[in-house]
């Protein structure tokens, strides 16, 4: 036992120990450490380093979390491009005007209208069909989540109704069908927290 484990090997051994590498070589090294006070001491020093490292990382993260004014500033300056999608033509009131709305804005309106309904969350929404050609019939495909304990049939019917009204109000799309797939159930709390995201003072 007169040759100790080289320090670099000891450090790597500790890492392997965490990642669950138990090769014969690893086990042999472990055996030496177990019977060798010197290597045990060195290993313990490396373990102390691990602990202090964790303390440092946690402390620095907590420091950033405790005063988040920097984050408020950063988020209020953050400009995220909206996913515009296709360009949907609108009737111009003057023949020289060309008016369009973006697919993204229509989808956002569908989401808002759908989620105004208690019990419903809109997970995804897609406009199916050639929205760029005026008057072409299209379908709206909605994937939704319904609150536990509510009637899927009622929610689906009311959701379809609200979306239809909103689309009539804001668009000229020739909507044939609004298909709703209920993919998930959610709790009351999840729904509240999700809908509260929009009401937060940090909402964009």
């Amino acid at each position, binding site marked *: 036992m007169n040759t100790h484990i080289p*320090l*670099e*090997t000891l*450090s*790597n051994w500790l*890492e392997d120990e965490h990642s669950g590498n138990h090769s014969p070589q690893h086990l042999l090294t472990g055996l030496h450490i177990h019977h060798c006070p010197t290597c045990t001491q*060195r290993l313990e*020093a*490396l373990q*102390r*380093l691990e602990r*202090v*490292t964790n*303390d*440092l*990382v946690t*402390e*620095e*993260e*907590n*420091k*950033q*979390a405790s005063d*988040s*004014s*920097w*984050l*408020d*500033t*950063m*988020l*209020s*300056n*953050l400009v*995220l*491009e*909206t*996913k515009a999608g296709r360009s949907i033509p609108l009737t111009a009131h003057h023949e020289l005007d060309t008016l369009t709305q973006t697919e*993204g804005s229509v*989808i*956002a309106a569908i*989401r808002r209208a759908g989620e105004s309904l208690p019990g419903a969350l809109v*997970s*995804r*929404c897609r406009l199916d069909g050639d929205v760029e050609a005026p008057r072409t019939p299209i379908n709206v495909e909605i994937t939704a989540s319904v609150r536990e304990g509510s009637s899927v049939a009622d929610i689906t019917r009311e959701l379809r109704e609200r979306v239809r009204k909103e689309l009539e109000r804001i668009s000229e799309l020739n909507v044939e069908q609004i298909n709703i797939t209920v993919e998930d159930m959610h*709790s*009351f*709390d*999840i729904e*509240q*927290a*999700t809908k*509260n*995201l*929009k009401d*937060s*003072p*940090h*909402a*964009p």
Partner: protein
Amino acid sequence: MTPSPAPTASTGVELPDALLCARAVAGDQYAFQALIRRHAPAMRSYAIRLTGSTADADDVLQETFIQAWRKLDTLEDAAKVRSWLMTLTSRKAIDLIRTRKPNVPIDDVAETHAKEQTPEQSAITGSEIGALAKALKTLPKQSQEIWVMREVGGSSYQEIAELLDISPASVRGKLARARIKLVQEMEGWDS
């Protein structure tokens, strides 16, 4: 917009990352901001450690947020969003370090440490953290970067190797030597 305390969900529910990710991918900016709020403190302390400067870290974060918004749909497992964000942060930070002029003044991250201890923290913990922060400054620059990416950023050897353009084996070796150096500095080890 006036800064105000972070919103605590009135229902006391923490929305899962997966839900926030799915909504953000579907175009919900509110969900994206909530996701960012959750992970930004870790990203910022990591970026400060990596760049050595709060101003640089904030530039890194701005760019990382924008890229995250654009690329969130490429994230396969929403449970891994934190490490994904940390990886984006690494890339942006390394890009910035590489293009930085050599004589830009750098905040002294380690020095600010001792002062900012909260009273509840024991003096012993504080002095240990301070000793580590000080020891880190004795490491060669690349070893520091490797240590920070691994210990603060949680990066894999492979990721670090790719970012620094060295082999994973070399990353492992340098990391082991960095840890030994830190212990030596902190505990007066003789090698």
